[in-house]
């Protein structure tokens, strides 16, 4: 990790990080609640499947709590230029179905989709 020596360097770093974001992100909810429901296995199974299929443009992310405790483990697929899709009650075998259908063929696995009923205030930009 390079040391950030000024506010300008921080802004530049932020811009360069966002410019690189062309990957598909598979986000696994891995807070205590998710882990207790088996998110660890789901993560391993997704990471293994990505390797096996040789998918290069996919990043698997361990994140915190998405808030949907009623349907843990949860997995969110974020494809550049598309609305994110949130899946609930995912296990290792369902994770494989999500990868083969959604990631590889672009078909959403409707029966596992959870409704995402929140907005995130867009807070990334500093108001000048």
């Amino acid at each position, binding site marked *: *990790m*390079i*040391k*950030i*020596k*000024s*506010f300008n*360097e*921080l*802004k530049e*770093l*932020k811009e360069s*990080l*966002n410019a690189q*974001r062309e990957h598909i992100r598979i*986000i696994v*909810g891995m*807070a*205590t*609640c998710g*882990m207790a429901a088996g998110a660890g296995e789901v993560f391993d199974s997704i990471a293994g499947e990505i390797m096996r299929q040789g998918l290069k443009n996919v990043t698997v*992310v*361990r*994140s*915190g*709590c*998405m*808030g*949907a*405790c*009623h*349907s843990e483990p*949860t997995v*969110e697929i974020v494809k550049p230029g598309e609305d994110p899709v949130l899946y609930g009650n995912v296990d290792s075998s369902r994770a494989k179905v999500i990868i083969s259908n959604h990631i590889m063929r672009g078909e959403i696995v409707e029966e596992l989709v959870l*409704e995402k*009923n*929140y*907005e*995130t*205030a867009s*807070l*990334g*930009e*500093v*108001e000048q």
Partner: protein
Amino acid sequence: MSGHKQLRIALRNCGVIDPENILEYIARGGYMALGKILDEMAPEDVIDELKKSGLRGRGGGGFPTGLKLEFARRNEGERKYIICNADEGDPGAFMDRSILEGDPQSILEAMAICGYAVGANEGYVYIRAEYPLAIERLTIAIRQAYEAGLIGDDIMGSGFSFDIKIKYGAGAFVCGEETALISSVEGNRGEPHFKPPFPAEKGLWGMPTTVNNVETLANIPSIFNMGAGRFAEIGTKTSKGTKVFALAGNVNKVGLVEVPMGTTLREIVYDIGDGIVGGKKFKAVQTGGPSGGCIPEQFLDIPIDYESLKEIGSMMGSGGMIIMDEDTCMVDIAKYYLEFTTDESCGKCTPCRIGNKRLYEILCKITKGEGTEEDLDSLKELGGIIKDTSLCGLGQTAPNPVLSTMKYFYDEYLSHVRDKKCPAGICSSLTRYEIIADKCIGCTMCAKACPTACISGKVREPHKIDQAKCIKCGACFKACKFDAILKS
């Protein structure tokens, strides 16, 4: 299909970024608020901006955050401290843990902002040792922030330095009270002391100290990124922004929700929480944990904020929200919370140590069917005295679960003491199971389910429960397919 009722500010990054990678936080605008503040704002402007935002403490009290920082700024001290209170202890509340597990960098950024505002160069995160994953992620976050030069010496070349250390708590509820928390950080027993002096004057090691809750801190970077004016447009007249609630209990979609202040309980329970499990009837919602109260159905439509919840005998608290259905006994609920507070009372002051114990004993008596109407008067009187005379917030609010359930569910207390009945059928001493001979076909299901083997009878002949041996577990009631068991 529910609409977009939730708005995420404190939880903006939770479940979105990798909490163990500072670059993901930076890509989402992390440390931009701190960078901007150090680059172009005076400490006084930072405080003014927070005052303008209307942000109030999310840990329970609801004290204006800007004002708190202003007090600490004004007080002279050789050193000053910022403490993050991550000693989340309410049964059923887990929002602080989720923020620390999902977005720890936001807390570090906010602590540095507070440090700059008051003139402090050191901060502590006081976190309970029962949160190992949060501690692990926080430790990684602190290390990465140091490496990136976003905390530590001369942050982003501004000349401002800020160090952050973790201090583990042993998980005592009373340590959520700021003076007790400070004692614990100093290595002493977690006991509160009288205020004044407030921590802003004499806090950690006798120096001016600001203690802020995790969720409060998580809001701070956003306020500077979105602008205090825009933040203040969200919410009600007295309570700005959003509040995170840990939705639990008899509700279909348990989880962590963040809604604008002024959202109604009905919207939270029915639109976001998708109603009561099994289509049962709503009875009450408990907010504020052991310091709060139970809110009955008649208040489902009031817009919730700090003031409205207080008016109806509960409080915002840290944001635990437990939904109860018709099968809940309110006396039993009050007893549960009192058991918790008597256990957690530090014992320093008499009203809390002994008063709450007596309250608990009276409640036990009532749930055993040995209570009298005079006991109900005693509960009220004693509860009032404890509230008025306890030293700290724990004791001052401990009787709330009793007083609020008595206020809204007095009939239920009366049934317990007068008719010796528990209407919800929870208090086992007051419940009786009987087999209706006319309906019993002698299938033996109940006898097989009974753990104490107190049901006798031949196959195809009516069975009978030996009341002396019955432990009122309800197993026979659940096992019977012919509605032949009467619960009363």
